[in-house]
Each structure stands twice: as C-alpha cells, then as structure tokens.
C-alpha cells in the first residue's frame, strides 16, 4: 500500500495525543498529578494539538473535505465512521477535564471522572482506527489481531514517553517516575507486539494467489503477459507500492532501535541519573527517538502491506 505522509502523520500524531490523554486521565483519577495550570496547558494543549492536527491532516486529504461531516453517518457498518464519532464524542469529557484542570484548578472528583471517561473514549478511538485496517481482508498484513494490538499499545506508549519528558520539564518527578515505569513496560510490550507482527506477516501462508484471482490456477502458473494500460493507474499508485526487501530490513532495524530500544535505555537511565538536567535530556531524547522510530514503523506498516489487486498485475501471492 502507498505510504501516504498524511496517514502516517495522522496515525502517529493522534496516537500519541490519545496516549497522553489516557495517562493524564488515569494519573488524575489516581491523584498522582497536581492540577498546576501551566502543566495542564502544556500537557493537555499538546495532546489536543496532536489529536487535532492528526484529524485535520486526514480530513484535508479527502477528495471532498467539505463533506467530511457525512462520514459520521454509517457507524452501524463502517469503522471509519465509528472512528470519527468516537473521536468527536471523546472531545466532550476531555474538554471538561481540561477546563476543570486549567481554569478551575482541579483534576479530582468529577473532573477526574471526566478524565477517565475521556481516557476510555480515547482508547476506543484508537481501537476504531486499528479496526479500519484490521477489517480489510484484501490486505492480509493488516487483517490480523497484531494490527489491533499494535495500535492499542503504540499510542499509549508514545503518549507515556512524551508525558515523561514534559513532567521532567516541569520538575514533576513523582508523576514522571510513574510514566517512566509505564513507558518502560509499554516499550517492551510494544517491541514484542511488533516483532510478533513482523514474524506473522513474513511467515503467514498466502490468502489469495494469482491462480485464485483469475481462477486459472488449475492450468498451472499464471503470469501476466499483457497489462491493460501502459502507464501506472490509480490502482497501481495506491495499492501497487513495492518495497525492496533490503530496504524493509533496514527500516525495521531503525524502527526497533529508535522506536523502542533507545527510548527504553534512555528512560532506564533516568532511574539512576537523577541529577540536574539529565532526566530531562534523556527523556527528551527518548521522545525524539521514539517519534522517528514510530514514523519508520508506520511507514513500513503501509509499504509492506500487499493488496490482493496486485495479483492481477503480476504478484504471485498475497
């Protein structure tokens, strides 16, 4: 599948934004974070900014953005519709939570309830995003449970890493310690999930073949000798993306090293190097590295996914 920058940006940015919201809601409910106004403005503001930027980027890339509201109507059957609805509904409790924190100076009691509701709806939105991909049967690399696990873990993971850096920036070592531990657990889980995912897509038996696509399999090997068109068409541009195996391996190494291993080591080090600017620098490095690694991971998620239509254009199996 063509790795469109807008979708890569949307899924990684809003994933991190929702991840931050989830942990802010949980920390507030546990009474582990003081409702300091400037801390609220920066954390909640950044989370909102990431979510909105992601949603906007995906909306603006529609063929007809002015009709985007129509996408909310088919929640009975469509995961894309459900995602849009969940995202919008989540804004209500998240808005109340943010208002209570920043303006009224409280994040406990009713505000914490709103925060928890917002956290749950954020997780639900991530689940809907995952299901948009996981429900597409023509793309076996997406049509599996590891796709869902990936979105559900990587969003909260990147959110926790980002929050850790901000807490250190504000000298909030108590919540920072919690999100550090969360980050370490989620970075380890996230890496395992992605390794399992890559293992699956590499070794999975093909679902469809050129033989089943044409129904000519009983005649032997099926090869295209004549294409319907001389130039690339929409199908080939959108779904015929191919990535060389050695490039994929390189990117996988980058995704593993920068997305998971380096942030893990940095945050592990903050437990021991507590003096001065070290925790802030290390957690900022963890955030930057994680962002680059996840962009590579998401790029691969698209680039490595092969679509059944390619079977009509020379691919032997997907």
């Amino acid at each position, binding site marked *: 599948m063509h790795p469109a920058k807008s979708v890569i940006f949307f899924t990684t940015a809003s994933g991190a934004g929702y991840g931050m919201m989830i942990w802010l809601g949980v920390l507030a409910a546990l009474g582990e974070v003081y409702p300091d106004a400037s801390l609220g403005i920066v954390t909640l503001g950044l989370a909102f900014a990431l979510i909105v930027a992601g949603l906007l980027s995906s909306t603006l890339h529609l063929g007809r953005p002015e*009709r985007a509201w*129509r996408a909310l109507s088919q929640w009975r059957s469509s995961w894309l519709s459900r995602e849009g609805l969940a995202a919008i509904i989540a804004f209500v409790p998240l808005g109340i939570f943010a208002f209570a924190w920043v303006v009224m100076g409280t994040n406990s009691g009713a505000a914490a309830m709103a925060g928890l509701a917002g956290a749950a709806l954020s997780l639900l939105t991530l689940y809907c995003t995952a299901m948009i991909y996981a429900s597409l049967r*023509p793309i076996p690399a997406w049509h599996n449970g590891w796709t869902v696990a990936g979105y559900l873990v990587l969003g909260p993971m990147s959110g926790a890493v980002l929050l850790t850096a901000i807490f250190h920036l504000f000298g909030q070592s108590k919540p920072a310690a919690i999100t550090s531990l969360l980050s370490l657990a989620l970075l380890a889980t996230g890496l395992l999930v992605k390794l399992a995912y890559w293992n699956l897509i590499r070794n999975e038996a093909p679902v469809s073949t050129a033989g089943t696509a044409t129904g000519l399999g009983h*005649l*032997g090997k099926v*090869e295209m000798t004549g294409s319907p068109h001389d130039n*690339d068409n929409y199908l080939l541009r959108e*779904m015929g993306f191919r990535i060389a195996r050695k490039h994929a391996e390189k990117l996988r190494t980058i995704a593993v090293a920068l997305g998971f291993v380096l942030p893990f080591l940095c945050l592990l080090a903050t437990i021991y190097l507590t003096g001065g600017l070290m925790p802030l620098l290390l957690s900022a490095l963890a955030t930057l590295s994680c962002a680059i690694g996840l962009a590579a991971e998401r790029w691969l998620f698209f680039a490595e996914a092969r679509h059944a239509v390619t079977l*009509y254009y020379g691919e032997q199996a997907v």
Partner: protein
Amino acid sequence: MTSLPEKTDKKLGLVVDLDICVGCHACAVNCKEWNAGAKSAPLTDYDPYGKKPDGVWFNRVHTYETTDEAGHGQTVHFPRSCLHCEDAPCVTVCPTGASYKREEDGIVLVNEDICIGCKLCSWACPYGAREYDENEGVMKKCTLCIDKIYNENLPQESRVPACVSTCPAGARSFGDLGDPESEVSKLVAARGGYDLMPEQGTKPVNKYLPPRPRQDGREGDKAPRMLEHADDSTEGAGLIARWVDKILS
C-alpha cells in the same frame, strides 16, 4: 445506508467467457465511451493526449499466460470489472453511505453527491474494481450501465450493458444470476462458471467461464492436417459421375 440488504430481488450481473474472449479491449473502450456521457460522467482522463495518458476506467482487460508442469502454455484474455458482490466489503466500509447495494437488483453503486473521496472502499475491494477520480475527488466504479439497461428510450435489444453489446466475439452475457432459470444461470451451470477469489468472502455475482481444455498434440482428436482427396474412389457415386470418371481416367 451502507449496511447490505438482507437479500436482493434480483442479482443482475455479467458472465465472462474466457474461452471466447480474444482480448480486443472493445468492452473496455465502449464502457469508457458510454460512461463518459452517462451517470458517472465525466469519466476523467489525465493527460489524454500527452506522453503518459491515464484515467478512470471501469473495465480493464489483462492478458495472462498459464504454464503447466509439462511446460504447456495457454494464453487467456481476462476482462476485469466490478463483480457486484453479494457481500460487498466496499459497501460496508463506506463511512458516508455513498456506496450502496440496491435491494431491487443487487447493483453496487456510488452516490457521487455524498462521497467524500476517502478511498477506503477501493482498499476494501479485492478486485481493483473501483477507481478514484482525482479531478472530481470522488470514487467511481462500474454501474452495470444502469442508465442503459433500464433506458426506455432504447430499443429492448439495446438494454444491455455497453460492454456486453459491443463484444465482437460474444464473450460477455448479462442477466439475473439469482434466477436459476435465466439464460446466464444456465450458461454458468453448463460451463462450470466460477467466482474470483472466493476465499475473500465477497460472494461475487459475476461469474467467469473457464477456457476449454486445449489439445496438446498428443491426443488423437486433432483436426486432420490435410484434406483427403474425396474423388479417389467412385464407389457410391452416381451414374453420371461414374461415366465421367470412366471417360477421364
């Protein structure tokens, strides 16, 4: 509504005979021709007279070569268009209700007035039957020539899809595949018509008829290589023929 109808009254669709198709692309061209002025108009072209012409088509003709273990090959021309699936995944994924399947005849259509151009339906179709129109910002696909098959301004015999009426070889048939007594259903039954990628669970309505087995030169049922001389013997010939034969030989 992008929920699929429980059942449709008819299952209108196409039957493509791969034994007959000669790969002339006439169906694809006439599809373009009809639809460039019909419901889905304009059927956009990009750079039509330039170096890299490209555009939206509802029907594409591929050519495949099969090779069996013994090395015997066969060429098969293969038209590919929307199969108007019973369990159409392109419909259920649509967030706007622009994609829908008609209850009365099972035709799968896009309402271009509400499509937002999210392209998700084209990802959900395993067969590449949907092509996005960059200029219009909406998705387009085969309409089963809905504005032709029901068009009362046309004589009855013309009320078939453009690709069917234009095929010079007669490789395409149109009809109700939900009615076991229809001509198309009988054709499918007689020739072992099949579904493309049944494992994708889409339950296509359109069917393909397999190429008939080719002779590989080893079997004895070949056509004679040379005509036998029919006049070598006078046995059974008429009186005048025998008399002429006698004079001449």
